[in-house]
């Protein structure tokens, strides 16, 4: 295990009292964001996102599946995240631990509950065949703020994703023999087309230590954080998902401040996302 020296805590706290951070950023400033999309040919969509030194790769697989009985006309999405040992000397191989599960669920909620993926447009034959969208998040370099890096990577990969008509044509042709609606679907969609998406909310995470609150924590800051709050906001500045973490607390005023900073940064990050996907 990597040990955090106690004097680091004191140093960062002292800096925070003066309104400073170790890397020279202001409290409401993100690190440099880099987004690349369309890297992998096997994935229906892919992206690599760097926030500072944190690096995440996300891939989208889209396959034909059967719907859940209670939503027979709706597509299905799942999100999985792996904290692979490549990313940090402290990540171990093996089944996902609490941390990876929380991460995957927070990213999943941000996408699912805000209805970015138009699942009602992913039906091939009600009750029989639908598109399944798998979002897989691979953390490859860990220097803090996995929530925002992962959710941005998932969003970028989704924007890069296509419905793989060409690759699955043999399966679809088999289906259309059984189901007339699939035949109609194939006539309307003769080839690959972008995954139908709506406006995405952008997730921004802040941490608190020594009564200072700062956005996009680097690993050093995250290690000494007392409380953490992730806020996903949409284009209209509305709140679409939140997650508070760690055993410290926020005042109501602090929560409001975090929300405001999340909205402000969300606007800038959304622009970068759109620029990277050519939107």
């Amino acid at each position, binding site marked *: 295990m990597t040990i955090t020296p106690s004097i680091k805590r004191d140093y960062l706290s002292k800096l925070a009292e003066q309104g400073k951070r170790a890397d020279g950023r202001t409290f409401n400033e993100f690190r440099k964001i880099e987004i690349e999309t369309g890297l992998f040919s*096997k994935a229906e969509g892919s992206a690599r996102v760097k926030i500072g030194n944190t690096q995440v790769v996300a891939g989208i*697989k889209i*396959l034909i599946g059967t719907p859940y009985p209670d939503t027979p006309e709706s597509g299905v999405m799942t999100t999985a995240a792996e904290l692979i040992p490549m990313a940090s000397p402290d990540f171990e191989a093996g089944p996902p631990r609490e941390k990876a599960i929380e991460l995957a669920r927070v990213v999943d909620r941000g996408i699912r509950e805000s209805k970015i993926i138009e699942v009602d447009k992913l039906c091939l034959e009600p009750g029989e065949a639908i598109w399944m969208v*798998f979002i897989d998040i691979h953390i490859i370099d860990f220097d803090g703020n996995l929530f925002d890096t992962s959710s941005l990577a998932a969003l970028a990969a989704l924007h890069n994703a296509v419905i793989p008509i060409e690759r699955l044509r043999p399966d679809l042709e088999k289906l259309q023999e059984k189901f007339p609606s699939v035949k109609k679907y194939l006539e309307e969609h003769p080839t690959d087309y972008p995954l139908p998406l709506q406006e995405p909310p952008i997730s921004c995470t802040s941490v608190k230590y020594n009564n200072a609150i700062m956005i996009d924590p680097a690993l050093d800051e995250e290690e000494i954080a007392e409380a953490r709050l992730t806020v996903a906001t949409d284009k209209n500045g509305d709140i679409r998902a939140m997650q508070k973490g760690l055993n410290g607390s926020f005042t109501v005023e602090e929560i409001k401040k975090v929300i405001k900073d999340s909205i402000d940064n969300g606007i800038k990050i959304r622009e970068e996302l759109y620029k990277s996907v050519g939107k």
Partner: protein
Amino acid sequence: MESDIKLIDDNGKRLDGRAPDELRKIKIEVGVLHRAEGSCYLEWGENKVMAAVYGPREALPRHTQNPLRAIVNARYNMAAFSVDDRKRPGPDRRSREISKVISEALEKVILLEKFPRASIDVNIEVLNAEAGTRCAGLTAAGVALADAGIPLKDIPVACAAGKIDGHVVLDLGKEEDNFGDADLPVAISPRTNEILLLQMDGHLTVEEFDKALEMAINGCHIASDIQKKAIMDKYQSAPEVK
């Protein structure tokens, strides 16, 4: 395996236009990760892999320690999105086997006795897979080990040869792997030509094997030159004084 696809034409050209003894394009970047002590990103045709090294560090749990030398834990893992049908995350029997043979190949070139009780952890992530990922992964791991400053007797490298439509060829591509007659992945220590990893499936005559092995070793040497140039380029490029 029978198929109607003709994998090699009468002029000896393969589906992707390569000659029988031609490798796919290889691209190597060194030191691409911040946390890992050594790292490498490698593209080999459409294969895209990342390798990262941690250690030498105290092997844990303790009972895995060898009092006389370091142990090597290579972990080969395929991303869920790296293949046509989504792969379930986590290790399966295939990736465990590949991890084992890669660990053993790497142990031969690392000066293990310098680090009793330690482990050297090598993580190989396959991000896009298209025939030959174990060779691409091992080749990336070799670069990452050198980048981590691990003492090595050689930088290990791998390449496969195989047989398609009755012809022995170098570095099988996707269809060639699916519909070919044999695949022979080989890893060597390029300084001595010692074989560090060898697997074969399919069907080869002894003569064909000899030819395939020679071809694979030649392929290893080409890949080795690319490895070495990538490491040199990374560390020789000291910034000029302005």
